[in-house]
């Protein structure tokens, strides 16, 4: 386990990286949402994480408090469904990080986050929501750590790959939850915005983790999925 200062630095760096990425993807996410929603997911997410990033100097206290503040800030700043889903779930799951960030607490955080998203939104796998990216990612992360004893960074890289498959999987599905479900058959053939932003956030987490966690090599080149994707 990295020391607390390193962890805090990593978390703050992750916030900045996510905020920057979502701002860069703002119009892409909005385009996705305009096809099957109300064209605001890009604005919602970049406004939300932008507000968090502006608070980074206020973010002291323990790691779990910092992460909790990320959640409450998103709750206040994001008007759409993603506000309670991202913000509420981060707020709830933050308590798993009371002891700091370890492989174990990361798994607990991921599981609590997924539970809360499912509980709040009542979406199943295949409902064409962020749950489709999140579920395989969390399952893969947990299995990689707990069953396969893989190093956290490798586990996270596998999780990112799983999320990406989940995002692709949303395309051919008919939406059963959220605004897109109003479109019924017309939602088929479009990629879910919330699943996509979930992937983007995970990609940034992986990036920042790679830079901040010691004792791991760069997984981009060595994880089996990265290799596979390279070969495609």
């Amino acid at each position, binding site marked *: 386990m990295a020391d607390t200062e390193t962890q805090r630095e990593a978390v703050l760096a992750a916030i900045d990286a996510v905020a920057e990425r979502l701002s860069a993807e703002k119009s892409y996410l909005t385009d996705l949402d305009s096809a099957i929603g*109300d064209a605001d997911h890009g604005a919602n997410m970049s406004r939300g994480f932008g507000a968090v990033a502006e608070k980074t100097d206020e973010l002291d206290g323990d790691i779990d408090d910092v992460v909790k503040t990320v959640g409450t800030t998103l709750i*206040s700043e994001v*008007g*759409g469904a993603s506000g*309670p889903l991202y*913000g509420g779930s981060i707020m709830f799951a933050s308590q798993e990080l009371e002891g700091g960030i370890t492989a174990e607490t990361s798994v607990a955080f991921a599981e609590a986050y997924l539970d809360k998203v499912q509980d709040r939104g009542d979406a199943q796998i295949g409902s064409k929501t962020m749950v489709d990216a999140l579920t395989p990612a969390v399952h893969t992360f947990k299995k990689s750590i707990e069953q396969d004893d893989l190093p956290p960074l490798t586990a996270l890289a596998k999780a990112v790959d799983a999320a990406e498959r989940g995002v692709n999987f949303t395309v051919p599905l008919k939406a059963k939850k959220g605004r897109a479900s109003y479109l019924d058959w017309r939602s088929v053939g479009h990629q879910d915005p919330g699943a996509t932003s979930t992937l983007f956030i995970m990609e940034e987490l992986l990036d920042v983790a790679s830079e901040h966690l010691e004792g791991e090599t760069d997984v981009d080149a060595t994880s089996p999925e990265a290799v596979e994707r390279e070969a495609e």
Partner: protein
Amino acid sequence: MVGLVVVSHSAKAAEGICDVAAEMGSAEAEIVAAGGDEDGSIGTSAPRIQDAIEQARDDDGVVVLVDLGSAVMNTELAIEMLEAEDDDVRIADAPILEGTLNAAVNAAGSKATLESVVEAAEDAREYRKLN
């Protein structure tokens, strides 16, 4: 008296629904609008809903009427974030305008309870408009 909160994605819709309900012989009932997101554009906001619940709340509890899915999620989150015990706050599974009218009329009655107001709101699902 049981209070009411109206959570719509539109601030205007929430206020207008409260206005119509207030005319239903229930000017006495506390009916609070919580529409729109933080800056008043289309959306919902858990903190706004939380404030509205606190404003509408007295001894007999609060019934919340909602429009779309994310209004439900933000209301649930708002209820979880309340300081005090939250078992006197209920979300009605009802059409928002029709449910609010029924609930407002019921809440104004001397026999109203949290249960009766929720039930009145949900009865609005059966309300037919054409002969």
